[in-house]
C-alpha cells in the first residue's frame, strides 16, 4: 500500500470531473420535481444522451455537436414520459421505470458498432491567469468547459427559481397544481417543458460520461448515475446549491475509492467499488428531512 502516490490536488481536480455528470442530471431533475413531477427515468435519459452524444461526436468530430445531440436525445426520450404522464395520466413511478428500461434497450441498440471506438478528445481549457494560481488553479480552473456549464446551470436554476416570475409559477405548479390551475396557469404545458429540460440535462450528463470521463461507449455505462442523481435531489432538499454539495460528496467518494484501488489498499476492489452506492444510502438516511414539493408525483387532471 502506498498512499504517497495519492496527490491531493489531482484528487480534488478529478472530484470535480466525477461530480459533473451527477450535477447535470440532478439539476434537470430538480427542476422537474419542483414542477411536481417525479421522473424516475433519469438513468434511461442519461444513457440515451450518452449514446446519441457519442454517435454525433464520432460522426462529426466535434464534442460540442455531440453535447447538443445528447441534450436533444435526452429531451426526445423525456417527451415519451411527458406524453404518458401528462396527457395519458399514467402512474409516474411506473412510467419512469419503463423509461429507464426502454432507454437501456434503445441505447444498446443504437450503440451497436460503436463499442471500443475512442471519442475525439474534448480539450481542457486553462482559464488564463487564475488557472496558474498554485493549488486552487489546477483544482478549480483547469477543466473542460462542461464542468463550468454544469455549475452554470445550477446557478441559472437557482436564479430562475428564486427571482424570476416563471420560476415562481413553476414552483406554484409543483406545490399545488389545483391552485395553480385555478389561477389560470397551464399546469400541463409548464410540466411538459420542465420534463424536457430535465431530459436535456440528463442527456448532457450521460454524454459527459461517454465523451469525457471514460471516454468510450459500453452498454449500460452510466451504471446507476441516474439513480444517484435522483438521490442527490432528495439530499439537496430540492435546493440548487445543496445539490452541488451532494454531488461533490459523491464525487469525492468515487475518486477516493479509485485512488485506493490504484494504491493497492488491503480492501478488495469489489468492496471499494460499492462504496459510492453505500455512501448514497447513508446520505439519504441522514438527510431525508427535507420537505418535498406538495404535488410531487400526483396526477393532475383538470375536471370540470
Amino acid at each position: 500500500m502506498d498512499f504517497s502516490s495519492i496527490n491531493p490536488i489531482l484528487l480534488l481536480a478529478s472530484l470535480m470531473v466525477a461530480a459533473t455528470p451527477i450535477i447535470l442530471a440532478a439539476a434537470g431533475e430538480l427542476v422537474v420535481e419542483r414542477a411536481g413531477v417525479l421522473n424516475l427515468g433519469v438513468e434511461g435519459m442519461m444513457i440515451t444522451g450518452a449514446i446519441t452524444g457519442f454517435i454525433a461526436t464520432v460522426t462529426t468530430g466535434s464534442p460540442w455537436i455531440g453535447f447538443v445531440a445528447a441534450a436533444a436525445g435526452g429531451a426526445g426520450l423525456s417527451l415519451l414520459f411527458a406524453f404518458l404522464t401528462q396527457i395519458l395520466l399514467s402512474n409516474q413511478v411506473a412510467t419512469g421505470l419503463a423509461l429507464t428500461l426502454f432507454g437501456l434497450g434503445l441505447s444498446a441498440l443504437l450503440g451497436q458498432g460503436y463499442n471500443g471506438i475512442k471519442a475525439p478528445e474534448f480539450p481542457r481549457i486553462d482559464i488564463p491567469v487564475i488557472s496558474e494560481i498554485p493549488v486552487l488553479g489546477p483544482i478549480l480552473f483547469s477543466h473542460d468547459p462542461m464542468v463550468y456549464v454544469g455549475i452554470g446551470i445550477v446557478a441559472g436554476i437557482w436564479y430562475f427559481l428564486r427571482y424570476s416570475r416563471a420560476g415562481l409559477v413553476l414552483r406554484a405548479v409543483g406545490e399545488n397544481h389545483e391552485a395553480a390551475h385555478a389561477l389560470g396557469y397551464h399546469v400541463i404545458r409548464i410540466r411538459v417543458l420542465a420534463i424536457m429540460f430535465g431530459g436535456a440535462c440528463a442527456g448532457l450528463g450521460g454524454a459527459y460520461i461517454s465523451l469525457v470521463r471514460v471516454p468510450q461507449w459500453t452498454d449500460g455505462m452510466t451504471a446507476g448515475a441516474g439513480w444517484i442523481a435522483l438521490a442527490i435531489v432528495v439530499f439537496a432538499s430540492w435546493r440548487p446549491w445543496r445539490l452541488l454539495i451532494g454531488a461533490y460528496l459523491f464525487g469525492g467518494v468515487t475518486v477516493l475509492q479509485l485512488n485506493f484501488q490504484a494504491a493497492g489498499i488491503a480492501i478488495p476492489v469489489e468492496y471499494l467499488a460499492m462504496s459510492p452506492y453505500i455512501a448514497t444510502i447513508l446520505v439519504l438516511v441522514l438527510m431525508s428531512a427535507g420537505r418535498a414539493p406538495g404535488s410531487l408525483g400526483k396526477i393532475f387532471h383538470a375536471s370540470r
Partner: protein
Amino acid sequence: MLTLEKRAQPSKAWVYVAPILAVIITMIVGGVVFAMLGKPPLEAIRTIFYDPLFGDFASYSRPQLLIKAGPLILIAIGLSFGFRAGIWNIGAEGQYIMGALAAAATGLAFYPMEARWLIFPLMVLAGLAGGMVWAAIPAFLRIRFKTNEILVSLMLVYVAEAIQASMALNLLRNPDGHGFPGSRNLSQYPSSANLELIANSGVHWGVMAALTAVIFAYFILARHRFGFDVRLAGQSPRAAGFAGVDAGRLVFICMLISGALAGAAGMFEVSGPAGRVSIDFNVGYGFTAIIVAFLGRLHPVGILIAGLLMALTYIGGELAQLSLGLPGAAIQLFQGMLLFFLLAVDVMTSYRIRFGKTE
C-alpha cells in the same frame, strides 16, 4: 378536440383489454423497428411469438419457456403485493442475487456431503432469508427514517452485484477450478441440484414454487385480511389508517414477501439453470419481473400469463438472434416498449374519451 373524462368506476372490460391491446401495439411497432433494422418484420414477429411454441425446434424451446418464466413469475408475485400498496421495491435484482449467494454458500459449506434431504431444504431457507434480509434494509430505513425505498432498494442492487463479483472471485471460488472465477457447479452436486422433476418438461422446483406462489397469492388477496389491507392501503392510505392498518407493518411485510420470493428465485436459478455463482450469473430477471407484474395487472393469474409471455420474448428473442441476426438489444427494447404501451393504453381503464369542444 378530444378530452378525457374520469369514469365513476374503473372499466371492467378495459382491465382485460388493455394488456392485450398493448401486446398487439408492441408487435406492430416492434415490427416497424425490426423493418428499420433491415430484418423481415413478419418473420421476426413469428420467430419470437410462434416458433418457440410450435416451430421446428419447439420440443427444445418449450421447456426453456418454463425455466425462464419460473423466476419471473415468482419475483413478480412478490412485487405485486408491495406495488398494490404503493410500496416500490425495485431492487428485486439485488434480493435475487443475495438469495442465490446465501443458498450457494449454504450448499457449498456441506460439499461433498451426501444428504439431499437436509441440504436442499436448507438452501431454500437460506435463499428466502438472503433475499429477505436484503429487502429488510430499505423497509427498515423507510419506516425508521422515512428514506425513499425506491432509491435504497436500487442502490442495493449495485452493492449486491459487487458482493457477487467478490464471492465469485474469492470466498466461493471453486478450489479445483484452476484459478478461474466462479464457484463449484451446484447443479452437478447431487445434494444441491435443482433437478428437472419431469424429464424434458423444464419443470424444476422453482417452477413448482412459482405456481404455488400464484395460488397462495390469489387466496391471500381475495380472501385473507392481509390481502384486504394491501388493497385498501393502495387505494386510500388514509382510509387504511382509520381501518386500523399499521402502515409500517404493511411496508415491512410487503418488502419481506417480495425479498423472500426474489431470493428463492435466485436460489432455484443458481442451483439449476445457472448452475453456479459466477461474476454475472444474474440476467436481469429482477427488473423484467417489474414489467411482468404490471403487465399481469398485479393480479396473480395475470402475472402467470404475463410471465409466460415475457419468457416467450426471451426465448423467441434468442431464436431471432440466431436465425435472423436480430440484435439482443432489440428484445430489451421490445420489452420496455411493452410496458410503455400498457401504461399508455391503461388510461382507458379510468377515463373515457369525449369528443367535442372544451368549453
